[in-house]
């Protein structure tokens, strides 16, 4: 017999116990259903091994790593400015938001800060990538539940946001725009006006989705009371982002920590929901898109003039030291622990991505649900494969 790791052994024992439980009642065998790695509900290559009794799940094990790309290791052979091109690909729907914490960590080590205008633009782009990310979630929610129309609305209106990101950075998906000490470029002319109109469109999109999906009785009956995560369980499993706020924890890193970004300069609200079920998670995200449009509009109105790049040496060497910076990314808390030994590139980078921790609750959460609910719960937990596997 091959040696099993601790975790594998535990899960093996749990699966045996699940089988025993199934056998006890009807003398039937449990069915092991592999959901994924190639399955539409997993947005990529996540594999969920589910032991079923009829259509009820008795035991579940998420098996990730099918898309592991070794970014933490790869950063060690790259210089600091090169790393942003890598980390762009972690959460590929909100790429710019991945760059920011890493750049902030590097800046923290170097003891510099981006100019005020760059901070504003960073925050705007950060929120735009949040909108691009979460609006797709809102559309995808419909598809997971069988309503095929909302996703096309999401793609239609997300296109405006991607055009904005492309207009400012040159890249639709992977901007690679953030630099240590500021930004690559200033905004193009007319971009701010365009942003205002797009934000109005996005709010209309939110209303549309709320009408079409959230007001739908079938949608509510599929999500309300399904996949309930109590407050303390959510905290224990290290959930973050909207998943945590939907369990009633008022916790948002944009507000709760002071970073050289512009969130504290505008008026916005952190939404929470007391229920902790799938509906709450979806609803909190919907409100977050609305808040993001408000943040962007206010920042566009108050954006200061000035340079977008501070003075940095041509060859960037980060002094020796360690820094941890985390931000509230579209999927939750994302952080980089950067260890520098004074070289051109980092000595070690530990990436804390939100989806990996959010996924860790699935064995607890999916126990006892029906197969169709696996899909809704996974959709409402909202993970992105790149964010799990890195």
């Amino acid at each position, binding site marked *: 017999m091959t040696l099993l790791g601790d975790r594998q052994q535990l899960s093996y024992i749990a699966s045996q116990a699940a089988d025993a439980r199934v056998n006890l009642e009807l003398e039937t065998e449990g069915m092991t259903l592999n959901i994924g790695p190639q399955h539409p509900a997993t947005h990529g290559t996540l594999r969920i091994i589910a032991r079923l009794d009829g259509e009820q799940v008795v035991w579940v094990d998420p098996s990730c790593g099918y898309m592991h790309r070794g970014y933490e290791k790869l950063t060690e052979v790259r210089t600091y400015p090169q790393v942003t091109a890598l980390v762009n690909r972690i959460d590929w729907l909100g790429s710019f938001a991945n760059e920011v914490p890493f750049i902030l960590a590097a800046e923290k080590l170097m003891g510099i800060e981006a100019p005020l205008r760059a901070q504003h633009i960073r925050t705007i782009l950060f929120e735009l990538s949040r909108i691009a990310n979460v609006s797709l979630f809102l559309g995808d929610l419909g598809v997971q539940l069988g*309503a095929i129309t909302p996703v096309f609305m999401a793609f239609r209106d997300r296109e405006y946001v991607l055009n904005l990101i492309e207009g400012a950075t040159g890249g639709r998906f992977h901007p690679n725009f953030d630099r240590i000490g500021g930004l690559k470029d200033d905004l193009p002319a007319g971009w701010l006006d365009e942003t205002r109109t797009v934000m109005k469109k996005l709010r209309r999109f939110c209303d549309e989705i709320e009408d079409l999906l959230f007001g739908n009785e079938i949608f509510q009956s599929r999500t309300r009371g399904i996949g309930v995560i109590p407050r303390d369980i959510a905290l224990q499993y290290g959930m973050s982002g909207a998943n945590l706020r939907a369990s009633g924890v008022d916790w948002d890193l944009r507000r709760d920590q002071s970073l050289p970004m512009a969130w504290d300069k505008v008026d916005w609200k952190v939404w929470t929901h007391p229920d902790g079920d799938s509906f709450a998670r979806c609803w909190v995200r919907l409100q977050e898109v609305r808040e993001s449009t408000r943040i962007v509009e206010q920042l566009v109105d108050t954006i200061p003039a000035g340079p977008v790049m501070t003075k940095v040496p041509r060859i960037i060497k980060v002094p020796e030291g360690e820094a941890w910076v985390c931000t509230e990314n579209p999927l939750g808390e994302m952080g980089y622990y950067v260890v520098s030994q004074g070289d051109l590139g980092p000595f070690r980078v530990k990436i804390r991505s939100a989806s990996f921790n959010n996924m860790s609750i699935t064995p607890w959460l999916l126990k006892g649900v029906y197969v169709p609910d696996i899909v809704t719960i996974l959709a409402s937990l909202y993970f992105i494969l790149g964010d799990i596997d890195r």
Partner: protein
Amino acid sequence: MNSTTLIVADVPYWGQSLFRVVGGLVAVLLPAGTIVYLFLFKMMSFMQSRLGPMEAGPYGSMQLFAEVGKWLQKEDIYPARADKFIFKLAPLIVLASTFLLVVVVPFGPDAWFTDFETGIFYALAVSSVSVLGILIAGWSSANKYSLLGGLRAAGQLIAYELPMVLAVIGVVIQAGTMNLQGIVLAQNSGSMFGFDGLGNPFVLTQFVGFIIFMISVQAELTQAPFDMPIAESELVSGYMTEYSGFRFLIFFIGEFATAGVFAMIASILFLGGWGVPFAWFGWTTMDSIDNWMNLAGPLILFTKMMGVTFLVMWVRFSYPRLREDQLQRFAWKVLIPISLVNIMVTATLKVAV
């Protein structure tokens, strides 16, 4: 039914058979093709702010032929562990149920394939045959998703058979016959409160029955919000997962042809079928209907069918899907009691009035 005017009366038996076969193919494939192009390709696209197929033919009207050509070229794959014989048989059973269904649909005063006295009874009976095909497709695919899909389909189709039958009973009570021609006649020669300009389409008097029938049709066709058996996002098309090429095409045609035939039956039961109100032309009985109705009838039925299918498709494109247990609960706890009450009320009124 004056037999002297029958179009096929004087041709020999083989000619009549050929005529019936060709007519059956047209009656199944033409609605299916129209529904797929008009609703699945175009209407769905317009609802989703896109154009749909535009390249093949004017406005993409030849797209379906391109798709069929593509499917026909594909390899006929079956899984290594599949039960090959019934795996290959399953789509044919599903399609056969559609053809059996279209047999009783009347298209005009003399334009029918067969004229059963218990037509609607037969139609409801053979519509269940497709369950068999779906179940064995799910079982023989040797795929867990297909198995789940097949079992769900079986549970769902059996559960929704009942409200459908009960909804039809209201119509049968009101028309006083199970013959589909008789039901058409009863609606078009009837009158409402002495006014016969509209006939008496049962959609008005049997509105509850119509709604229940349409919901059940939606479930029978496994269209959203009742598309649990094929649920793309969880079961990856359920019982159809392992099918490819020609056999998938048969499932596909079967799905939309059945939608067309059920829409025809719904328009016969509730919207007056192939007929127009007889008072318009002074007709009183079946025999007094002019012969041109045999040509106009199919077109009228087709128009009504498209209207009903529009409803079915509209719901399909807009709604998310229910969960399996919610779906069963809806059938047993909501639809069946309502349809039973509907039958009681209809019967009481029928006797009282």
